[in-house]
């Protein structure tokens, strides 16, 4: 167990340091997210009451598209210098690499969400009618649901043509229940029309099921060449 956590920590620290120095993923995600916010905002120009109903969907669609930008770069560095091949022959457990990548992406997307949320509040005149602190667990669970499968499918799409297009094609159909749950839960909090509990439970179930599946199958996918 400590071997897994040591290697995970080392890989994660490396990724964060690289990202801190280059800021490739976070910059492209941020700008992309900003563009989505602006485009949606002036194409709908909603009043406060309307935006409460649609903001849940808009926010998550923006985060989803922006997350794909980061997810697509997950393995790019490892492929370039045959790091992945070195990883395959090393005795390090495959899951520690996967966890490091998923946690790294999780961190990047959470940072993105933290920076984008004020923008949404400004552009869409948002004010939650329900308990606003509940949005934090929803964001954490929802983001994990996206990045755990995203990191996994990014590894799968390494061996395809047009891999940057392949990732959303694989990720979106599988993520539909999670996206529905995040959007519904967020809308429930914003409008205070219905309880968000069911959707949070669904997100937890989704996270547990797919984290388990990813951890069980990642070694198979990593070794497939």
């Amino acid at each position, binding site marked *: 167990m400590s071997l897994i956590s040591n290697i995970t920590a080392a890989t994660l620290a490396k990724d964060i340091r690289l990202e801190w120095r280059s800021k490739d993923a976070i910059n492209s995600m941020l700008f992309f997210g900003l563009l989505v916010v602006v485009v949606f905002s002036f194409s709908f120009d909603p009043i406060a009451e309307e935006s409460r109903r649609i903001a849940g969907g808009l926010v998550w669609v923006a985060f989803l598209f922006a997350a794909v930008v980061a997810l697509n770069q997950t393995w790019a560095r490892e492929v370039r210098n045959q790091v992945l091949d070195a990883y395959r022959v090393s005795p390090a457990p495959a899951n520690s690499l996967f966890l490091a990548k998923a946690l790294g992406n999780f961190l990047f997307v959470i940072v993105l969400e933290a920076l984008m949320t004020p923008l949404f509040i400004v552009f869409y005149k948002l004010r939650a009618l329900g308990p606003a602190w509940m949005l934090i667990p929803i964001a954490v669970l929802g983001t994990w649901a996206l990045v755990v499968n995203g990191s996994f499918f990014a590894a799968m799409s390494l*061996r395809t043509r047009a891999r940057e297009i392949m990732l959303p*094609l694989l990720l979106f*159909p599988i993520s*539909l229940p999670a996206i529905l749950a995040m959007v519904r839960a967020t809308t429930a909090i914003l409008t205070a029309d219905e309880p968000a509990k069911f959707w949070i439970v*669904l997100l937890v179930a989704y996270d547990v099921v*797919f984290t388990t*599946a990813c951890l069980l199958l990642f070694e198979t996918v990593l070794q497939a060449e």
Partner: protein
Amino acid sequence: MKRAFPILGVLTAVLLSYGLYEALVAAPTEQTMGDVQRIFYYHVSSAWTAFLLFTINFVASVIYLIRRSPVADPVAVVTAEVGLVFCTVVLVTGPIWARPVWGIWWTWDVRLTSTLVLWLIYVSYLMLRRFSTSGQTPLLAAVLAVFGALDVPLVYFSIWFFRTQHPQPVIGGGGSIDSRMMHALLINWLAFLCFAFLVCWSRYRLEMLRREVEEIQSQKSMFEARGAR
């Protein structure tokens, strides 16, 4: 084995024509919906056939993941492709029936949504197979099939939370159905199963031939490369 194929073909043709007669002429007209209801015999038979094929696809994928059996993967390809066709028939005939009966083409009901998501997952499954460049396509596809199978119950459960609009299943759902309608439905399902099996079989032979040709070509190019040296 070679002779069984045309026999099955003739049997399928006979069953499909008999099924058509049963569905359009012999089965009684439904009291409230009228003749529109007759699409039911095709809609439901296609749905059952598609779900059966997707189940076989899932089982074959799991077998491939565990044993790397060389038969399991072509079975998975074939059932995914043919299943997707039947699933498309379900998704097209559904709205045609729903428009006059419900007054709307589509609603985000539990069965409709799950079927659509299943359809989307299998489209992405076939895209993955098409775009994959490595020799490990079967493995990646099998992994995706397992993910898809995990996803469908979650979709079903999430939409089930809303009330559902789709008619309850006539079998095992507490609904009642005229015995002649049931007869027409079962005949059509049998015909569709035979048809699906026939298509799967020829597609399976095609897939095996394709693999054989690939093998021979790679051997030939290896041989030529050695000769050139």
